[in-house]
């Protein structure tokens, strides 16, 4: 009986050895940037409505646009500068220029082993010009990688 048990054990040992996992580096399939997710609303109707044209770039970075005459964009993803406590953007909606500035607190967030770290933010009430923008309201002040509305821009 004992020898039979030993044979079973040795067979199991060999089987388990085959199960030894091979370590291969993983890949990151998550969103790694925390954007301010801005949705556009018509001030007249109060309903969500994508502008006919949207151009967006950081103040002082007009050579590098985030959106350039983008059409039917229902939600704009606005990246914040993690190295400072505030940053501003030029926003051209339907050919009319406005600026919008954010101040925020920034903190580090570990996403996963494969994706590493990112920066999350908590924004204050933004400051903006009102050439075409009517009001900007905060829906959720925590800026994370989750797909959730942060601000509403009425124009």
């Amino acid at each position, binding site marked *: 009986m004992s020898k039979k048990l030993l044979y079973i054990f040795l067979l199991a*040992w060999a089987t388990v050895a085959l199960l030894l996992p091979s370590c291969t580096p993983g890949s990151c399939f998550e969103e790694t940037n925390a954007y301010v997710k801005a949705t556009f609303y018509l001030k007249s109707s109060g309903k969500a409505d994508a502008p006919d044209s949207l151009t967006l770039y950081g103040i002082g970075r007009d050579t590098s646009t985030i959106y350039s005459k983008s059409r039917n964009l229902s939600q704009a993803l606005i990246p914040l*500068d993690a190295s400072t406590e505030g940053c501003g953007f030029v926003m051209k909606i339907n050919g009319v220029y406005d600026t919008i500035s954010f101040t925020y607190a920034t903190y580090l967030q570990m996403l996963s082993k*494969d994706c590493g770290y990112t920066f999350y933010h908590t924004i204050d009430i933004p400051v903006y010009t009102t050439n075409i923008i009517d009001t900007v309201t905060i829906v959720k002040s925590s800026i994370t990688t989750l797909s959730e509305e942060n601000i509403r821009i009425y124009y």
Partner: protein
Amino acid sequence: MKRIYVYIISLIAILISIPGISQKSSEIPVDTVEIPLKIRSALEISGPVLYFTDKNILNLEGFVTVDLDEKKSLYLGGGYSDYSYSQYNYSFLAKGSFYKAGVDFNLLRPEMTEGKYWAGGGLHYGLSRFTSETPYLKHDNYWGSVSTSLTEQKNWCHFLEISGGFKAEVFRNFSIGWLISVRKLIYTGAAKELRPIFYPGYGEGGKTLTFGLNYYISFNIPFKKIKVFIMPEPVEESEEDEENQGSNNNTQIGRQGIGN
């Protein structure tokens, strides 16, 4: 009255003549087997072996079990892990010691194991004391690249471990074996947003459960012998026997019938 005495005496006589009822419980045949209780001192061998192929993780681990009886043993384990990970946007280091305590259960029957084999499972509570740091991290977005680091932090981590496997004594007082473990993190002192990606003794931090496979060699020191009672298994009658018995009974009834 006389008839009642005759009835009682007859009843006693019948009861005595039936073997199953007449035997006292102490007279039921019981076997015993002598089992040596042992202290097992084990070293995990896959950790050092894997370190030669992957210098990013060193895991040194061992345990001591003390047999409480033929089924249960007290488990005390511990070890040390040194982990490093690096990819394009960050690097991470964690090192520290861990301790585990619990109970192991041998599911094999004593007469099968003879004190040499163990197949079963264990429930252990784990505690890890470690340091972790991120010497380098980089994040890129529209505004450019931000590089920073996280200084060394000391943390605790508590976890539960359920393990199962097999151990066999291949030479006198020398065993080899393997254990598969499932671990559940129950508490960590690290901040929620900066959870380490690796906890010594537990494994990767981002997972709800972690799995481990360990190979052990162990040296066993017998310290006591106990006698374990084994109930004999009831002998099952084969269908042929039953059929034969049945035909014999029929014959007897037939003869009785003829006799009557």
